[in-house]
């Protein structure tokens, strides 16, 4: 305990901002729901944790891993206070009446791809017709569905289509279960599964990678969100802070963690590695956890260092990008109507960054 007090005292000295005046009080416990098991995808939050950025904001942050569920459900029901997820997940949840609110956009570019073997001679999305595509359930299938819908293809994921043109195969995230024997195309994140497929023995020159963003499907991924209830809370968990203030502090510390992580990748990887068990490993020839996470950190940095981040506005949801995402989802019929204005709360980011 003494050590912690000393540490927070030091940090208070090092970062004398107005907010720190209150950190002498008991830190506020905040549960942040990650979208996955611990890995470099969340390096920014782990760095913020390890470097004491959260503590400096007067927050005691628990980073929760998740399995088959959507983070939306744990946040909406109050099992977690904040969460990270993808924008389609958030907007479809709102459409179903779940009051969740976007507060910060961490990744500015989509890392979603569909991967095929070059030898399968698939060169453009229209070629997917009649093929078998491996997809992940739990709201992770939307980018692929959007890509296929854009090219007039339907999938068996739709509970209203009886004769789909593409056979969707769901599998529990491990590409080796289905690829390349059982599906022609498989979902892969640039920062994770692509390397796992390489690990299966298919080097990059044997693969044809369809990046969703190259085909105009740039659905934004990792963002931070919370529930309307938390934002409206005048006294978050009896801490004396408003929910919005807590959100701003969390976002501020997270952005700081992310900025540090993408600048010091090796150090970030070393912080992440002890936190994950088997989930940090790649597969096959690329199974070494450190190698896989180093590579993941590099790819993640590309998704973070794009768009607004390059203009010094990390965490900002570019309204133009948001509009484009909504328009795309509406075109595809995934969203039935425009989300209401309170789907995104810009004031949290403004308070966190001090920018307009």
């Amino acid at each position: 305990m003494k050590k912690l007090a000393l540490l927070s005292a030091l940090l208070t000295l090092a970062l004398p901002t107005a907010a720190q005046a209150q950190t002498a009080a008991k830190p506020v416990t905040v549960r942040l729901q990650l979208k996955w098991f611990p890995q470099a995808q969340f390096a920014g939050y782990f760095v913020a944790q390890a470097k004491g950025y959260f503590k400096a904001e007067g927050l005691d942050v628990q980073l929760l891993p998740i399995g088959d569920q959507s983070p939306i459900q744990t946040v909406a029901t109050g099992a977690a206070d904040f969460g990270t997820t993808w924008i389609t997940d958030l907007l479809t949840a709102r459409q179903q009446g779940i009051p969740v609110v976007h507060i910060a956009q961490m990744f500015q570019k989509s890392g979603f791809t569909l991967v095929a073997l070059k030898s399968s001679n698939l060169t453009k999305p229209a070629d997917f017709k009649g093929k078998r595509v491996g997809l992940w359930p739990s709201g992770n299938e939307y980018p692929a569905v959007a890509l296929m819908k854009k090219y007039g293809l339907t999938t068996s994921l739709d509970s209203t289509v009886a004769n789909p043109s593409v056979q969707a195969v769901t599998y529990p995230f491990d590409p080796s279960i289905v690829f390349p024997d059982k599906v022609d195309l498989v979902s892969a994140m640039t920062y994770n599964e692509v390397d796992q497929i390489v690990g299966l023995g298919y080097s990059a020159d044997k693969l044809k990678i369809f990046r969703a963003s190259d085909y105009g499907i740039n659905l934004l991924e990792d963002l931070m969100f919370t529930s309307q209830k938390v934002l409206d809370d005048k006294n978050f968990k009896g801490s004396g802070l408003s929910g919005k203030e807590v959100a701003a502090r969390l976002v501020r510390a997270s952005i700081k963690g992310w900025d540090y992580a993408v600048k010091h990748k090796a150090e970030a990887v070393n912080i992440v590695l002890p936190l994950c068990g088997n989930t940090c490993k790649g597969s096959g020839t690329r199974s070494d956890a450190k190698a896989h996470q180093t590579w993941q950190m590099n790819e993640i940095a590309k998704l973070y260092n794009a768009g607004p981040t390059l203009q010094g506005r990390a965490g900002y949801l570019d309204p133009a990008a948001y509009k484009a995402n909504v328009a795309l989802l509406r075109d595809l019929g995934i969203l039935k109507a425009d989300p209401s204005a309170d789907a995104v709360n810009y004031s949290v980011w403004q308070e966190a960054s001090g920018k307009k």
Partner: protein
Amino acid sequence: MTTAPTPRPARRASNVLPMLAVALVAVLIYWPLMLWANAGQAARSLASGADLGCGTALQCATQLRNPVIPAPGQFASGFQSLSVPPLAATSAPYNALVTGGETLLGLALASLLGLILATLLVRSRSFERATLPWLVASQTVPIVALAPMLAVLLGQFGVQGFFPKAVIAAYIAFFPVAIGMVQGLRSPDPLQLDLMRTYRASPAQTFGLLQIPASLPYLFTSLKVAATAALVGSIVAEISTISFSGLGKMLAENSRASDTVALWVIMIYGAALGIVLVALIGLLERLVTRWRPSA
């Protein structure tokens, strides 16, 4: 759902030799099956241009990174990496203990709730008529599918970690236990009930001294049936909710990490856990019902 307790057959030491023989046959089948299954997989991978670091399909069969059936060496190293040291957070024995604990707590909860419900069912005819058909029907419903949703709902009330998994295990074990208990509470025959009456026993005494003891064998029989289902419940709950330990969490993790060998190892631990749980209940049964004259 009449699952009357059956007397346990006498153990025979002479089972050892036949069991060994069957095990030997299984091993003899395993070896060519493993080679055949893996070689097929390897051949397809090689044909699609994968670089596996080995020459022919047969050579690759024992060293595939993602084998269909692991080779003996892979089993050995998989077991070692997941079992040593046994109580580390990432090792299977520790996680099996966590899952086993959740399941046992769940079974205890289920017994308590089952007893209460069974008492109501036996005492009130209108309650029985109103609910019993649905209790029986509920056993045919895939309640496991509801486990994730239930865990989310419990999380809302700040119930997290160990307890929600036990609740889900209880939820799954609860119906068979309740129905077994109803049978048990009704098992004393009219003669015995008459005897209690001639002793001027109060209804509460009849219940506590005759019906409850008479229902114990039924309780244990249904607990043994329910144990595996409850174990499935706690593992599914671990997979689908926030969890930091347990076999389900390992299963989810390793399936994400493409570690096929680990999945096999965890399956064997899961099987062993199921067997141990049933054996534990059997042991408890013998301790609790020792006073019963062996029929």
